Structures are given as structure tokens and as C-alpha cells.
């Protein structure tokens, strides 16, 4: 087949070289060789630098992955000085020059995570080993993020996570080479708690349905703590199998349990189905319990899920990392740039991926080198603004971004087909900031043997 | 001296009494034919002997040892081999392999993990298989696919599979069913030839020509029970047999 001729030659050469190196030099001899002359994984040598975008292209999150990919492509364009520049002009303090990264033109490769740890790691490895990617980004689930993050730590390649919301990503599974721009379950709880108390009162009894895996558990724990801090009681927490589809057997006991709020710690297809079934079939939103209106809360909201849930999402409270309708210059610039390019507004997944690409490129410019330990240093405790979320800190202690968190509500009367959620409140960054030590974990070393060995 | 002794075997299928107090004794080295009209219980009896069916009552003793409750492979290992009415072979294996399989069973027992040693290195097994193939005129077909053989050849192959085990008792279920007269005669010749090996045989057969050519003794079954037993000559002239089996017609 002729499709591969162009790039296969390059792969052949690099492979042969690597094969030679692998056979000729057992790694014991080169183990400590690189730190002096900075031999590191995939140091770009030619006129281009390659970034690896690892997103779900098959499976339930394929649409989210497609949106992430759009954002990445746009970011690459802007970094190379093409298009309108998007958020590059608003980003401060910026070292970006619009001529690629360190003068090298940015190229990219893509891969399919399939939202499976193994597939995501295999895809990331291909990008590093075959395509010589210097950085990996993207993804749409915490399991995959944690898996790829630890791989990147081993290979000495920086990983800028995509959409991942579990506390573990920058908590107990944090890594020196992994950075998260997206917010997490803890922040969702802290931001949402007071708003819930304000809207629904302090005397409430909550019933949790939780996706039975690590993200669901951290979400449930965070929401439980945050609501109980507001005086709510937790009636029951029930775990549901991932991908259960039909949640009727978990929904039927809710109304007779004495609870007057249902908290759905679900994401993706689980959330779409459980929310729709609760609202349209079990009629929960129109019920009265304990003399109060029964309410449903979805702590993590996204545009695609709101679209999938349709009318059921109306009036539902939740949190989001970012929204394209926010009133700030950077958001407007990005929404315009993305909208003009693709004819649709960016999702929050797209936004975080775009921001991560810029942040990485900027850190390289700041460090003046692609050498990862230096880039990591530049990213750690980097304080910036102008990427749509207001003033933001990339905390060095856990590589988590701290910025305002949005409390959103499913829009009752959408003005157009993209107008699915409205921002109820912007919870300031200080409120959602927490002590890095509460989730434990260990970042690990900045200098690793990596794939260069 | 009797090799196989059947005492008072009963078998019911629902309301149907398939075997009714069957008593039989097969002498060592004899060729014993069991005849009878359709539904007389011949095949059911045979199935009891090889462990396919468990009788409700009665005893089946082979060389002083009860065969009842034994798994088919244990009965085979005890020295009873069977040729089926419709040939039961391994259609996906070669003719040679078909014959080697039972040879392995009699040499290695019902189960042995022989993961490493090549079949090609088992000269002992190969030699036996080769000998049988020569004897039964299957040598030229040894590398053929057993499934694509003719029905008559398959039956010969199955006979080879039984003989290679040197069984002490060979059960033949209608060995010439569906064969032309010429093929039947060939089979009779073949069975006569192997009779020289001194294997005790029980033959179930419809074809009187076959029975009277081969058998030393004949038992007649009707309605699940043995109604007569004797030499072929005796049976031929037994009025009860003619009544029950041949409907009064003269042979």
C-alpha cells in the first residue's frame, strides 16, 4: 500500500538506529550518561517538534475525543503562527512567539485510547517510540489519565492530561511528569455544596447513586463531605455497575427512602441514562418529599452529556471547568477562533486540551529547552491568566491547576442548539484551594532514565 | 469357560420394557451371534455392555469382573472393543492416525500426559498400526483423510481400530448392514480371517447368511428376552425361533 511510504522511511531509519543502539549498548553503560549532556527522550533534532494527542476515538467518549482533537489541531495552528492566534494574545505572562516551539514547527500525531488503560498506553508508547513525540496530551477518563501518566513518568515524557476529574490524578497517583489543568471531584464538592444549601436549603437528605469505580468513589466522598458540611444528611449511598444502562432497579428505592435529593455520581453514558430515567420515567423532579420539591444533582456536568440527556438536564445543578459563554476576553477569543474554524462552540474538554498545549509550549519557551526536568520546573508553581479561567496557579506540589470553578445549571429555555447550560455562580479559586497533602501520593523524580536509555 | 456372563439384566424406558431378564453366557474364544427382529433389544443389550446404558437390574461380568457402572473407557481398557452400526471413526484424522489412537489407548492407558514425545518417535505404536493396516488392506490409504473414505472402507477402518487394541472381546453391531452381497462376502472373509486371532466375538446381525457363516453359537432375542440359544444348526430348526423371529417361514 502506498499510504505509508512517506513516513515509513523515517520510521525505518529511526527504528534501525534504535535497534542498533539497543543491541550495542546495554543500558547499564548509558544509565547515567545522559544527565551531563542532556540526552533525553525524543529530543527534537530537525526543524519540527512532534506532540502526541491521545484521545478516545472509539467507544462511548468518541465524540468528546473528536472535540479534543479539534482543539489540539487549533492549538498547533496557533502555535505555528497560523490563524487568528486564539488565546495566545490573551495569555499572560506569555513567552510564546507564534513561530512554533523554540523555533521548531509543531507537528502532531494522533492515537485512539479506546478509553482503556492498555490501549491508551500502547497508543502513547507508539507516539513516543515510533513517532518521537516529546509530549503526550488528551484523554477522557481518569483511569486512562492515571495509566498514561505513570507510563509517561517511566518514559520521561511530559503528559498534559485531558479531561480527568478524579482526585487521584493529582492525588495518590500523581506523577512528576503529569500535569492537570482540569478541576477535580474535591473542587466540585466544595464549589457545589454552598450553592446547593442556598438553593435547596440546609435541611436536606441526600441519596447517592455512584458509578462503582475509583472516580465515582472519590466523587461520592467529596460530595458527601461537602454537603454534610452544609448540614445535609446522607441517607444512602448505592454503587451501580459501570455501563449498567438501565438504572431502574437502583432508582425505584430512592423515592421511598426518605431522601429528598438524588446525587448522581455518574459520568458519560451512565449519567445520561440515570438522569433521563430519574426525570422522564420516575418523574422525580415533580415529586414532593418531606414537604420539599425533590431535586437531582449531577456534580460533574458537560455539554455532551447535557446534549445526550436532552430535556432531562433542564434545571439540574452541577459544576464545570469552563464554559464558552463566560464573559472574559480569553474565552471570547477562543470561542471565536474555535467557532470560526469548526462551526460549533468548544466543549470544556476541548478548552482544557487547548490550554494544556499552550501551557506546555510556553513552559518550553520559558525553560529555553525541551529537556523535561527544566520544562517541569517552568510549569511548577507557574501563575498565569488569560486562558479563560481567570488567574490560575499550576501548583508545584501536586501539579494541579487552581482556578475558579463554575457552578452550572441545565438551561430551561435554550436560545439555540448549543445553549445547554448556564453559569449560576463562579466560585473563586481561594475557596476551592486545598492542602496538597490531603490526598497523599508522591510525584517521583524529575530526572528519569526514560526512553533515551 | 465363559468370558462374559450376563445375569438377569432388566432395562425399562418409561413404560417400555427393553430388556427383560436377559441371561447370556459367552464362551472364551467363541463367535456368538445375537439375532432377533427389530426392537428385540439387541442394541440396548450391546449398549449395556459398553457402558452407554446402565441396566436397572442384573449383572454383567467380564472375566469375573463386573462391568456395570464403569465408564466406557474403563470397559474398553478392560479389553472390550466395539464396532458400531454406523462407523464411528475420527473423520478429521488420517487413516494411520485413526488406527494409532486406539493403539495409544491400549499402550498408555486412558490418560497420560505425553506432551513432549513425538508421535513419530513411537515406533512401537506405529509398527502395530502398520501391521493392522496391512492385514486389513488399508495400507495404501494410510495417509488418506478418514472422513472422505467410502462407507465400507470406514467400517474396515473401524474394525482395524478395534483389532489394534488386541481386545479380548469384540462386539460387532451389524457389521454388514447396508452392504451389497459382494461386500458382505468380503466382510465375512475378513471376519473369518481375524477369527484366527482367537478373539471372542459377539455379533449382532440381521443377515442369516452372515450369522450362519460365522457363528459358533446363536442366541435369539425377542421382546427384550432371550428365547433360544444353541448352535446355528439347532437354531435353524428350532420352531420357537421360526415362530417368533421368522414368522413361521421356513429357512
Amino acid at each position, binding site marked *: 500500500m502506498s499510504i505509508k511510504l512517506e513516513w515509513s522511511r523515517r520510521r525505518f531509519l529511526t527504528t534501525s538506529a534504535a535497534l542498533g543502539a539497543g543491541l550495542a549498548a546495554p543500558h547499564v553503560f548509558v544509565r547515567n550518561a545522559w544527565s551531563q549532556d542532556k540526552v533525553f527522550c525524543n529530543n527534537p533534532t530537525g526543524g519540527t517538534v512532534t506532540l502526541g494527542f491521545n484521545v478516545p476515538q*472509539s*467507544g*462511548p*467518549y*468518541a*465524540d468528546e475525543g*473528536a472535540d479534543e482533537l479539534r482543539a489540539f489541531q487549533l492549538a498547533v495552528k496557533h502555535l505555528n503562527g497560523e490563524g487568528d492566534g486564539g488565546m495566545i494574545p490573551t495569555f499572560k505572562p506569555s513567552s510564546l512567539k507564534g513561530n512554533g516551539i523554540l523555533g521548531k514547527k509543531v507537528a502532531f500525531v494522533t492515537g485512539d485510547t479506546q478509553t482503556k488503560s492498555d490501549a491508551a498506553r500502547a497508543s502513547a508508547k507508539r507516539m513516543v517510540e515510533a513517532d518521537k513525540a516529546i509530549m503526550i496530551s488528551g484523554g477522557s477518563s481518569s483511569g486512562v489519565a492515571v495509566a498514561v501518566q505513570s507510563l509517561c513518568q517511566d518514559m520521561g515524557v511530559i503528559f498534559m492530561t485531558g479531561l480527568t476529574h478524579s482526585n487521584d490524578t493529582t492525588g495518590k497517583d500523581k506523577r512528576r511528569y503529569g500535569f492537570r489543568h482540569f478541576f477535580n471531584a474535591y473542587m466540585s464538592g466544595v464549589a457545589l455544596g454552598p450553592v446547593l444549601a442556598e438553593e435547596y436549603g440546609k435541611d436536606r437528605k441526600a441519596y447517592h447513586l455512584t458509578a*462503582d469505580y475509583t472516580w465515582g468513589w472519590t466523587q461520592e466522598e467529596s460530595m458527601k463531605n461537602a454537603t454534610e458540611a452544609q448540614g445535609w444528611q446522607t441517607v*444512602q449511598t*448505592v*454503587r*451501580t*455497575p459501570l*455501563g449498567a*444502562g*438501565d438504572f*431502574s*432497579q*437502583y432508582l*425505584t*428505592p430512592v423515592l*421511598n427512602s426518605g431522601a429528598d435529593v438524588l446525587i448522581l455520581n455518574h459520568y458519560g*453514558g451512565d449519567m*445520561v*441514562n440515570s438522569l*433521563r*430515567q430519574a426525570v*422522564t*420515567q*420516575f*418523574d422525580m423532579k*415533580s415529586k414532593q418529599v418531606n414537604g420539599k420539591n425533590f431535586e437531582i444533582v449531577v456534580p460533574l456536568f458537560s455539554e*455532551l452529556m447535557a*446534549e*445526550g*440527556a*436532552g*430535556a*432531562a438536564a433542564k434545571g439540574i445543578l452541577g459544576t464545570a471547568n469552563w464554559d464558552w459563554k463566560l464573559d472574559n476576553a480569553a474565552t471570547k477569543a477562543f*470561542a*471565536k*477562533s474555535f*467557532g*470560526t474554524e*469548526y*462551526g*460549533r*462552540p468548544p466543549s470544556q474538554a476541548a478548552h482544557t486540551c487547548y490550554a494544556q498545549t499552550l501551557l506546555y509550549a510556553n513552559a518550553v519557551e520559558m525553560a529555553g529547552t525541551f529537556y523535561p526536568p527544566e520544562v517541569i520546573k517552568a510549569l511548577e508553581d507557574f501563575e498565569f491568566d488569560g486562558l479563560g479561567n481567570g488567574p490560575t496557579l499550576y501548583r508545584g506540589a501536586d501539579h494541579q491547576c487552581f482556578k475558579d470553578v463554575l457552578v452550572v445549571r441545565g438551561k430551561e429555555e*435554550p*436560545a*439555540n*442548539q*448549543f*445553549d445547554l447550560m448556564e453559569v449560576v455562580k463562579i466560585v473563586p479559586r481561594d475557596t476551592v484551594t486545598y492542602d496538597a497533602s490531603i490526598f497523599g501520593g508522591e510525584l517521583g523524580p524529575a530526572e528519569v532514565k526514560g526512553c533515551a536509555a | 469357560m465363559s468370558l462374559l456372563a450376563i445375569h438377569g439384566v432388566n432395562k425399562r424406558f418409561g413404560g417400555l420394557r427393553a430388556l427383560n431378564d436377559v441371561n447370556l453366557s459367552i464362551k472364551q474364544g467363541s463367535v456368538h451371534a445375537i439375532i432377533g427382529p427389530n426392537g428385540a433389544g439387541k442394541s440396548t443389550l450391546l449398549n449395556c455392555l459398553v457402558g452407554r446404558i446402565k441396566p436397572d437390574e442384573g449383572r454383567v461380568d467380564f472375566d469375573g469382573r463386573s462391568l456395570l457402572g464403569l465408564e466406557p473407557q474403563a470397559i474398553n481398557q478392560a479389553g472390550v472393543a466395539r464396532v458400531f452400526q454406523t462407523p464411528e471413526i475420527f473423520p478429521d484424522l488420517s487413516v494411520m492416525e485413526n488406527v494409532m489412537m486406539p493403539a495409544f489407548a491400549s499402550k498408555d492407558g486412558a490418560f497420560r500426559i505425553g506432551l513432549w514425545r513425538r508421535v513419530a518417535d513411537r515406533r512401537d505404536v506405529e509398527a502395530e498400526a502398520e501391521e493392522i493396516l496391512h492385514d486389513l488392506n488399508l495400507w495404501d490409504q494410510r495417509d488418506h483423510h478418514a472422513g472422505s473414505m467410502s462407507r465400507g472402507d470406514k467400517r474396515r477402518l473401524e474394525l482395524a481400530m478395534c483389532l489394534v487394541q488386541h481386545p479380548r472381546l469384540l462386539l460387532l453391531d451389524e457389521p454388514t448392514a447396508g452392504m451389497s452381497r459382494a461386500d458382505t462376502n468380503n466382510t465375512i472373509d475378513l471376519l473369518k480371517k481375524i477369527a484366527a486371532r482367537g478373539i471372542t466375538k459377539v455379533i449382532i446381525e440381521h443377515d442369516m447368511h452372515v450369522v450362519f457363516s460365522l457363528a459358533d453359537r446363536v442366541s435369539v432375542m425377542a421382546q427384550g428376552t432371550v428365547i433360544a440359544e444353541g448352535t446355528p444348526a439347532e437354531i435353524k430348526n428350532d420352531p420357537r425361533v421360526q415362530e417368533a423371529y421368522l414368522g413361521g417361514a421356513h429357512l
Partner: protein
Amino acid sequence: MDALILQVLNGLDKGGAYALIALGLTLIFGTLGVVNFAHGALFMLGAFCSVSFAKLLTISERVRDESVTFFEAYKEVPYLEIWWGETGKSIVDWAVPLSLLLTVPVMLLVGVAMERGLIRFFYKRSHAEQILVTFGLAIVLQEIVKSFFGANPIPLAAPAALSGSADIGSLVGLHGISYPLWRMIYFVFSLGVIGAVFAFLQLTTFGMVVRAGMADRETVGLLGINIGRRFTVVFGIAAVVAGLAGSMYTPILSPNYHLGMDFLVLSFVVVVVGGMGSLGGAVVAGFLLGILQSFASMTQVKAIIPGIDQIIIYLVAVVILLALPRGLMGRRGVMEA
């Protein structure tokens, strides 16, 4: 007590879906001897018949939202509403039940095309090859759907009059038992379809031949009956049954392109637990597994055996298959080798 009744109801609508899929699957197994891994995809296609139908009904006039300048944002008003006002509105509202008008012919066509174009060449092939080709077909079908409709679940609503829940307890003198209307409709619907299939097989000569074929394929072939054409029809019926099950399930479960794969494994378990080649077994197993799954999800049960709701279906399958060698009502010799 109420909780138990509710869980039985939950089991019934779930079981209805399982039974319908398993029914078609076992029909194909039994008569055609084909292991159809694309059967889940047929369920999915049925669901997307409803999606397409709803999209057709809601072809809309687009009113540009001028406040958004960089891309086209608009509010959609279906032409049906513009032309026919309230009548149009209620037609759109009843999209899912009406979509059956599209599902039946489309699925019949799909089934016939599949059988004529592909499956019939595989009657004599090994089960392994049947699995490979139908699995490949399932992937192709779902990828085609994905390229048209995306990967995100698509919300389809039941008619307003039939959504929400109804107090069915009051009918039998119990209070506080209210259950979603559409789910009850689904259960009744599934009984209706099952009844229709059985009636067809029991009461028509065509059905008699099919049943004879399930009992003994070779003999029926020897009778000189044109089995080929009947196989096509059987496959078409199985496809329609799966499609109907999928179509009517859309308000309960938002369909996405992956729906078929999610149901595939489950439907095989149902068929085998019911017993190969037994239509009645498939139906009984469908409802049985549905109800047991609901019971296993109760917090009281989960407190005793943690995680039981994750594995109940498979656990029941193991227990039944070990206790009853051929499932609930399977026949000897079918798919045992």
C-alpha cells in the same frame, strides 16, 4: 413488600427486552444453525430507526440566534409544528411509537438482505467462521451508524402522555406503588410481540415447517420443502423482533452506536440459559434473569453479598448450566459439539 413488587416490575421490563432479543437469536440458532453475533447490532439498528424517524419528523426551520456571531447557532422549530400547529406538535411527541411504522419494513429489509447477501453462504461453515463474519458485520454496522449519528447517546422521549409514572398500586389496593408508564407499556408490548411470534409459529403452516425445521433440519430438507426461502423469512422475522425491541427501548435507554455490543453478550447468556433451540426457554430465561438482576441490586441484598449485582447474571448462568446440562429447556444435541 412494596420494594419487592417494584423490583419485580423492574425485572419485567428489563426481562422483556432480554426475551425479545433472545427470541430472535434462538430462532436463528434453531432453524438456521447460525451463531449470529450481529444480533445485538440489529437491536441497535432498530433503536436508530426510531432516531432517524424522530429526526425526519423534526426537520426544522432554523432561526438564527444573532447573539452568536462566530458560528451558526440557531433555534430549531420543526416544520410540522409550523404547518400544523398543535397537531404537528403531537405527531412529533408521538415519534417513538410512530417510528414502528419505519422500523418494521426497514428491519425486514435489513434482515432479508443480510440473509440473502451474507448469512446463507455460511450455513455449512463452522461456527467459528460464522462468529467471525457476523462479528465483523456487527462492527461495520455500528461504525456506519457512528459516522452518521456520532458516539454520544441521543435522547428520545416517550409521548408526554405516556411518560412519567403511574400509581399502579391503587389498582390492586396497595398504596405508593408508582411505576414508569412507558416501562409497563414496554412489558406489555414485549408480551404482545412474543405472543405474535408464537402464534405465527403455532398456527400457520409456515410456522409448522419452521418448528419442524428446528426439531430436525435434515428431515425437513429431505421432504422437498424449499427451506431456503423460509430461512430468509425466519431471519427477517428475527431481525424485526430485535428491531422492535430496540425501537421501543429508546425512551428507556438513550441509544448510541455501541448499544448492540452492550446487549450482545447478555443476549447470548439468556439464550443459552434458556436452552439452545428452545423459544420458550429464551423467553423464560429473559424474564428470570431480568427479575433476578433487579433483586440483586437491592441494597439489602448487596449488604449481604457485596457486588452481587455486578455478577448476578453470570452467576445464575453458571448455576443453571451446572444443574441443568442444557439450560432451562434445551434439547439434546443442539450446539453441544
